[in-house]
């Protein structure tokens, strides 16, 4: 391994890219980004590199694992049973998570902002693709006043968000999740619930989601913040 010392600026840049700076250090680095072009260029390069590693290597992997080709005899039996159990668990989790009769799912919804007309006023389900979250399913259930729509967004690193939309006068469910944000748009009440997402990242995503439901689409400039919040944040823990 190389023995040359790494400069303090380099260490600062990498720590910034990895989300390791304290709020005060982060603010100082952010102000330097605005004034130091070389620093900003190096930061952009490192962010791009990290994003390439995260997206190119991590997100392309399929969830299901094939049966092993090479086995350790000592754990062959336990391994086989366990692998089947894990695979079954994955399939079961996906099956439970999906709506048997989804309004729409997958790329069609992820590709564009969708307005649903089944609620009393059009509900907006934003495209959270820039945040690395894909709309996986939508479920409608009867509520105290009309239908309740629950949209589930999934990320590749264990992140899950649920966006619940219902009539503003309906009782709002508040169970579960690790973080939550509520807001109203006209006659509709929105509730965004996170499962294991780091609070800083959720704050960025929730703010963007709220703005999108008010404006009908993600406002200009939000994409970059969502991407940065995703890349610099740790994976979600459930």
């Amino acid at each position, binding site marked *: 391994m190389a023995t040359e010392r790494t400069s303090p600026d380099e260490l600062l840049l990498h720590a910034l890219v990895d989300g390791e700076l304290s709020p005060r250090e982060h603010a100082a680095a952010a102000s330097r980004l605005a004034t130091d072009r070389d620093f900003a260029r190096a930061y952009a*390069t490192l962010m791009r590199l*990290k994003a390439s*590693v995260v997206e190119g290597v991590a997100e392309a*992997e*399929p969830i299901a*694992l*094939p049966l092993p080709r090479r086995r350790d005899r000592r754990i062959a039996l336990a391994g086989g049973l366990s692998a089947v159990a*894990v695979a079954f668990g994955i399939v079961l989790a996906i099956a439970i998570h999906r709506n048997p009769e989804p309004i729409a799912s997958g790329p069609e919804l992820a590709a564009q902002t969708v307005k649903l007309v089944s609620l009393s006023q059009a509900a907006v389900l934003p495209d959270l693709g820039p945040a690395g979250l894909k709309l996986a399913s939508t479920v409608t259930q009867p509520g105290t006043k009309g239908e309740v729509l629950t949209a589930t967004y999934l990320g590749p690193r264990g992140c899950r968000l649920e966006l619940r939309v219902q009539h503003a006068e309906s009782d709002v469910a508040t169970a579960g999740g690790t973080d939550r944000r509520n807001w109203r748009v006209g006659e509709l009440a929105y509730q965004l619930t996170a499962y294991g997402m780091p609070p800083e990242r959720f704050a960025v995503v929730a703010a963007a989601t709220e703005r999108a439901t008010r404006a009908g689409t993600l406002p200009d400039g939000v994409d970059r913040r969502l991407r940065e919040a995703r890349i610099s944040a740790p*994976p979600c823990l*459930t």
Partner: protein
Amino acid sequence: MSRKSHADLPSLLPRLVAFARTIIGDADSARDLVQEAAARALAARQVPEEPRAYRAWVFKIVRNAAFDELRARALRRQEPPAPAVDLWRYDDAYIAKITVEQGLAAIAPAHREIIALIDIGGFSYAETAEMIGVPIGTIMSRIARARTALLQAIEESSIRPLKSSHGH
């Protein structure tokens, strides 16, 4: 061992495969390795209950298995198999992906490991330091060196993302 202990394992599998793949170089071996590591984890008698500790524990099992595999390959002098290539997927994003993969394959295993732990595993510097058993300052300098090595490897590779040619 409680059932709840392994509740996070399915959601960790993609990252574990990507982590193993980054260290040992090919996807098929990485999947086999993670499957065996998952079996070991499920058979363990003592399992961390706290989610972060559990994640670090499982990654450590995969990390140890990956380095065992690298050592075994060195003894067998076996080169990692070339990744399957689909000639008709050569768009900018795919070439960028290949470029990063080739860059990762070209740098030292220790560099690949630190990048895999922080960028793919998503571990903080403190968690990575604890996992590897070095001070946090060492992690800071190692990740800087590793990324510099990766950038140099990409710079030296012959593959470049194609630029679209409008107006020619």
